[in-house]
């Protein structure tokens, strides 16, 4: 290890590794956005990355070094000997684009990774800091890629036509000349597959679930958090236990019971089950929050002649609005994403929730882009809600802690 602690060894090494990362990244991004044949070359990336690392260490003080580096990488890619190789039929514009992208992704970040690394002997700190800067950069690229690629594929596939998809599965570029026809899958889903209705059913079911859950769990949570009674400790433990019971174990008897009671294929049947599965989580989250509220305010209310229920309504609830928002959002997410019960209990296409509707699209007779369009329709509302209220959502997730 110690042999690496030398500026002229560390910088080219990190440069080579960074170049491989960037080459793969650029090849994937270019392939996915233009459909052209780009591929990374590990050996060339290692060589040019090491050279770039050396050059940036040697001449980092020079103002021209970055521009020169980007220009050189672009030229190398154009000449076909860069870290990213283009197929013969790739147009000059695409090639130029790939070259510039590679240069910009390789040189300036590498300059930051190298930072003020000394050229000669390094101590442990300098070496590890450089490695950490590299790992951080790698982490950004890696995590952003693994999170975004599936969602990108989902959206773009839904906008393609079946033939285009089969002809080149890599080509996600949009044929803008198709105009409104781009959204054909969506139009067909809403027109022929009743997705407008499923959307409404899902909204109704999720909102009702949130309302019923809060109605049940607020008083319960207050009792567990504030009131003294025998069995209180046991109560807060059993709440945790209950939400470790797997849904599939419950789904089987519920299916049997509903079959015999004629409650299958009914939204009301679904609404009898969903809130109960979320009440324990909500109760657990809320009681934690209620415990954190100052008891003195409530005691003052009691002294002034309010009874307990009035205290809950007039003092505790207004104080815990942010917690209610978090819990509500979290419950909404669970209800919106719920699949198993909807799948088992609903067979009648006129009563589907959105997730059940999407499951219906998974058949060999229905084209893939319809399935992906359905997935987008199911994902967008929850994502919009999530991005708009991220603060509450994050807090809700951390408090709900464990539910999968």
């Amino acid at each position, binding site marked *: 290890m110690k042999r690496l602690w030398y500026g002229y060894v560390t910088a080219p090494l990190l440069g080579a590794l960074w170049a491989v990362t960037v080459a793969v990244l650029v090849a994937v991004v270019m392939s996915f956005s233009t459909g052209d044949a780009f591929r990374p070359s590990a050996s060339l990336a290692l060589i040019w990355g090491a050279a770039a690392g050396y050059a940036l260490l040697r001449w980092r003080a020079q103002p021209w070094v970055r521009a020169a580096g980007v220009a050189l990488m672009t030229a190398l890619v154009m000449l076909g000997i860069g870290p990213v190789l283009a197929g013969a039929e790739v147009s000059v514009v695409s090639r130029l684009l790939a070259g510039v992208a590679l240069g910009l992704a390789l040189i300036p970040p590498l300059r930051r990774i190298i930072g003020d690394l000394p050229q000669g002997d390094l101590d442990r700190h300098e070496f590890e800091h450089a490695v950490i800067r590299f790992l951080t950069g790698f982490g*950004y690229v890696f995590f952003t890629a693994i*999170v975004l690629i599936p969602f990108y594929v989902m959206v773009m596939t839904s906008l393609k036509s079946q033939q285009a998809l089969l002809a080149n599965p890599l080509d996600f570029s949009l044929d803008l000349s198709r105009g409104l026809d781009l959204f054909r899958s969506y139009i067909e889903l809403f027109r022929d597959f009743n997705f407008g209705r499923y959307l409404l059913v899902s909204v109704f079911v999720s909102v009702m679930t949130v309302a019923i859950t809060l109605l049940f769990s607020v008083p319960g949570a207050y009792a567990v958090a504030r009131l*003294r009674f025998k069995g209180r400790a046991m109560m807060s433990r059993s709440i945790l236990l209950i939400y470790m019971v797997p849904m599939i*174990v419950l789904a089987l008897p519920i299916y049997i019971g509903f079959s015999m009671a004629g409650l299958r294929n009914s939204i009301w049947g679904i609404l009898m089950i969903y809130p109960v599965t979320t009440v324990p989580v909500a109760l657990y989250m809320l009681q934690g929050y209620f415990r954190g509220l100052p008891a003195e305010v409530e005691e003052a209310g009691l002294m002034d002649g309010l009874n307990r229920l009035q205290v809950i309504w007039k003092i505790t609830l207004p104080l815990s609005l942010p917690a209610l928002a978090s819990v509500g959002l979290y419950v909404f997410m669970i209800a919106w994403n719920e699949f198993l019960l909807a799948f088992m209990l609903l067979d009648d296409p006129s009563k589907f929730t959105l997730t059940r509707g999407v499951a219906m699209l998974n058949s060999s007779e229905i084209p893939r882009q319809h399935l992906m369009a359905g997935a987008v329709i199911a994902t967008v509302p929850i*994502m919009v809600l999530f991005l708009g209220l991220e603060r509450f959502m994050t807090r809700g997730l951390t408090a709900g802690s464990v539910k999968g």
Partner: protein
Amino acid sequence: MTSSIPPAGTGPLQAREARLAWGLLAPTLISVAIVIILPLIAIFWISFKPIGLADLRPPAPEAYERVRGDLDVAGAEATLEYRLKNSSREYPVTGVRLTDVLPDGLTITELDPRCALDGAALSCDLGDWEAGFSERMRMPVTASQSFVDSEAEVRDTAAVLTGRGNSVLFNGTFTLENFARVFSADEFFSVLWVTLFYTIVGTIGALVVGLMAALILDRDFKGQGIMRGLFLFPYVAPVIAVAFTWVTLFDPFSGSANALLLQMGAIDTPINFFGERPLALIMVTVFEIWRYFPLSFLFILARMQSIDTDMYEAAEMDGASPFQQFRALSLPQLLGILSVLFLLRFIWTFNKFDDIFLLTGGNAGTRTLTVNVYEQAFAISNIGAGAAVAVVIFACLLLFSVFFFRFISQEEGL
């Protein structure tokens, strides 16, 4: 003189408070009892029952009525026929009664001895029917002019049959066959192995990846909030959407992943990621890691940001390098949350059903215990065996939670 000892026992105020508490908890307790506890008891009951999907419909008497012969002129004679049948070939129905209303103008000339006629209302006591019972009950009828004119049919009013079917779900037959079947099947140990691999690798993987994600975001920079929101995407999106996206992405024929690997020269022939034996299990585990790393990431990040920075400054002064600081300071601080997360995620991954069901349907060596419940109950239509698997799952969970509560009572936080 007043006593300085506080009153012992339960005072009226305390009793009132306790009553209020139970009152407030009542809706939760009742609903949980009905939707969670009752099904749990039911699943134990069913697991000892020889019951298939078809047995869910209790045996019922059925009748099909028709007129044999022509009734096109007044005074014509024909035969009214009821075809009677027990819908079940295995269980009897007892105390069967048939009631029907005859159309106007139709007269039965010779009543079946089991039947009685009151005006136009026909009622018959048909007694007990064996399993698979079937009979044709025939009665001669004559038509009057009004019947011919009205063009009424005997089937205009449906015959109503009542009887007590003895459903296998509620009778006294019990069997251990379900459990024998579950444990003796060759696949049981393969299912168990798949479950353990999926649970352990998935849990540890999600923790490690979450820890890495938290490490790179644990610094102040512009866009940290955006990155944090982004990292949560896989967890927030509906499982059905992301699972189908993965299936599309890794499709052996039209999947982009295969096309990409082919183009880059990494592989020569397309790989069937979700259809080959060891690979499918690895892929569903990777999916599990991908989908649940955000959760561990969020918790670990929250814990990291609450660690006192003074400690790191002191360590810096003493000459500890970044990796040494991580090993000697951060890791011990994170151990608590990591072990709690491990236990909870372990249980939840063990319980997971949707993900594998949507990705592979439990094929290609990815059948876990939970998927096996569905497979037994619905694919093989043997509800009893499915319930037996569910009981096995429940037993495992009880074991975990005993361990869990032993451990968690020593841990901070949850």
